[in-house]
């Protein structure tokens, strides 16, 4: 799952590439739009409370709701497959594609299919896969990966897209977003109408209705689940909500949190394949329910992360994400939510450095529509990662703990640090630190230590 570079290396790369400016602008504007949308909706806070309760109720009885969903879907003509992991899901879908003589698949952007690397598996099996979300289509043409949960090409500007389209699609160069859109519309329309299989994710699965809800603004979600003969919906097993009334709450919360809209343009509710006498729609519906590490998360101390509805609000709110962009995280799940999802699904050993990339400022928790306590989860993961830390960090921490448990030595040390700090500072700021510490001041300035330590101040105050 990791790229060749270390986390630090990927951050370096993001800075060098000049990516952050575009991301900073886009995330800030969407963050503002979201705040405005929330301010214009007096019931937002009550709705968030309700949404959180719906998600936790669904998860606390996940086995029962999943069973109910599967029973009703099957009654309506859907075929359900339970996939323990990525390999099982990919094997089922590629075998189905082969059995149905599928040559081309049109795909709706979906995090879980990115997670299981479904496109790679299908392409190995000789099936052409076309991403149909405009942003995801651009990412695919460029041979890259998405950098944001809901805006996959946040890292590209119009000129990048213009050059890409001219080179890859053989069209005349234009950097007008409307014209670029038209080019993609024309190109993809032909793909939709000649695809044998449509693959989507699932935003929410409604247990009582055996229905899946799929939200898009562009309409590619509807086209991919209408035109091809076979529709395969891949869902993380935690996507369940109990009732249709719950769905109404969550669709509103998702739209408001993702983009500040009251509802997305298309809230598409699918319940089984087309019935006899229906003029259009797929003849087969397959729902692939994916575990892939989720049941382990469900029983762990970070189970709360499964409440996530994948709106991307925490990414836009996060000062770290705003500075490094999505690619730096090295995982399909970037940002605050990714710092918990990635290690919990793919293993803390490999991903132990992600939970560290946070100042625990709590902006993510404020932004989260279902109020996930992401800072608490990050601290929890950090506690678990101590064993994985490098020798220098462990030695440093051990030294600090010896120092901090000896009051006289600690006082002496803080005075020494304060003195050296002041000597090194200019106009009250440290701009360049010596010895092992230059990384601290490479991209920021640190205030010079105060002239007296807290302890000294406290003692004087008491006297």
């Amino acid at each position, binding site marked *: 799952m990791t790229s060749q570079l270390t986390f630090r290396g990927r951050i370096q790369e993001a800075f060098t590439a000049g990516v952050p400016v575009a991301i900073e602008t886009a995330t800030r504007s969407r963050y503002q739009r979201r705040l405005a949308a929330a301010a214009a909706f007096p019931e937002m806070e009550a709705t968030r*409370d309700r949404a959180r309760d719906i998600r936790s109720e669904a998860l606390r009885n996940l086995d029962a709701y999943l069973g109910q969903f599967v029973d009703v879907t099957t009654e309506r003509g859907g075929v359900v497959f339970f*996939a323990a992991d990525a390999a099982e899901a990919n094997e089922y879908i590629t075998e189905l594609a082969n059995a149905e003589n599928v040559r081309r698949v049109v795909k709706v952007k979906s995090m879980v299919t990115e997670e299981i690397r479904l496109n790679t598996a299908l392409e190995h099996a000789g099936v052409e896969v076309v991403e149909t979300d405009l942003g995801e289509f651009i990412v695919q043409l460029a041979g890259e990966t998405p950098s944001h949960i809901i805006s996959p090409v946040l890292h590209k500007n119009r000129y990048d897209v213009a050059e890409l389209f001219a080179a890859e699609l053989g069209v005349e160069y234009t950097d007008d977003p409307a014209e670029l859109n038209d080019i993609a519309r024309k190109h993809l329309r032909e793909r939709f109408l000649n695809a044998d299989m449509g693959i989507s994710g699932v935003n929410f699965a409604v247990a009582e209705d055996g229905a899946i809800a799929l939200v898009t603004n562009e309409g590619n979600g509807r086209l991919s689940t209408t035109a091809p003969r076979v529709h395969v919906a891949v869902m993380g097993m935690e996507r369940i909500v109990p009732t249709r009334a719950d769905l109404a709450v969550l669709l509103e919360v998702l739209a408001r949190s993702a983009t500040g809209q009251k509802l997305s343009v298309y809230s598409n509710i699918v319940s089984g394949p087309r019935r006899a006498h229906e003029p259009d*729609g797929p003849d087969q519906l397959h729902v692939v329910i994916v575990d892939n590490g989720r049941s382990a998360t469900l029983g762990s101390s970070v189970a709360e992360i499964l409440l996530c509805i994948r709106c991307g609000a925490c990414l836009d709110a996060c000062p770290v994400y705003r500075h490094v962009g999505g690619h730096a995280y090295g995982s399909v799940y970037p940002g605050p939510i990714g710092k918990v999802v990635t290690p919990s699904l793919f293993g803390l050993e490999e991903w132990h450095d992600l939970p560290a990339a946070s100042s625990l400022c709590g902006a993510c928790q404020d932004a989260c529509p279902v109020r996930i306590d992401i800072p608490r989860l990050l601290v929890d993961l950090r506690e678990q990662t101590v064993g994985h830390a490098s020798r220098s960090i462990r030695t440093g921490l051990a030294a600090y703990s010896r120092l901090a448990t000896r009051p006289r030595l600690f006082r002496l040390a803080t005075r020494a640090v304060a003195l050296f700090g002041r000597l090194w500072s200019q106009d009250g700021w440290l701009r360049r630190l010596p010895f092992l510490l230059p990384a601290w001041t490479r991209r920021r300035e640190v205030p010079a230590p105060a002239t007296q330590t807290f302890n000294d101040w406290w003692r004087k105050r008491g006297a």
Partner: protein
Amino acid sequence: MERDVFLGRVQAALRGDALPAPAASAAVPQVRFGDAVARFVEEARAVDAEVSRVNSNTALEAISRIFEAAKEFRYLAWDGLDDVLPGLADRLQQASYQRVDATVATDPEQRRADHARIGVVPLGITAADTAIAASGSVVLAHGNGRPRSASLLVDTHIVLLPVGRIVHSLADALEVVDLESTSNVVVVTGPSRTSDIESALTLGVHGPRHVHILLIE
């Protein structure tokens, strides 16, 4: 993996009781507008739908104008639109407009041919089952005689909406939807849109660029 084994793993994980308990939040307050119709019109226009308030006579005029502006004679449509707007079928026939059959076959080759035929039709007419004042959305339940393509493949989607079908909220609209006899219900809020390229808003990505709502009083 077998269902029982899969769900067994979930059950085992749940025994750890690691999830936050629900806080027993109150139900979300019901949205109720003083004038739901006015609110609907305002919200629909805010998401770039075009809304015309018409009666059953001026509705036919409005439809003709849309056809003339589009310089088109082919259209996709749902069955039974005459129940919503009496005289519509006659009127369209008199003007020599051609309704294209939107039925798509199961057979792969025939399906491609059907798509080639249907995919070029630029106008579609449907009738909303309900509409949502809070968001300016229309709700379309597909099914027998109600092709999805009429609101999906076309450039311009014309929606007939009798004023009495407007409800206040999404919750109200979903409550009356029947998911047993139909495979697909869609809530449409304005024309297809994206902001993927530099956050610049563009209409008509994959779905219709224009959504005309004829609000029939």
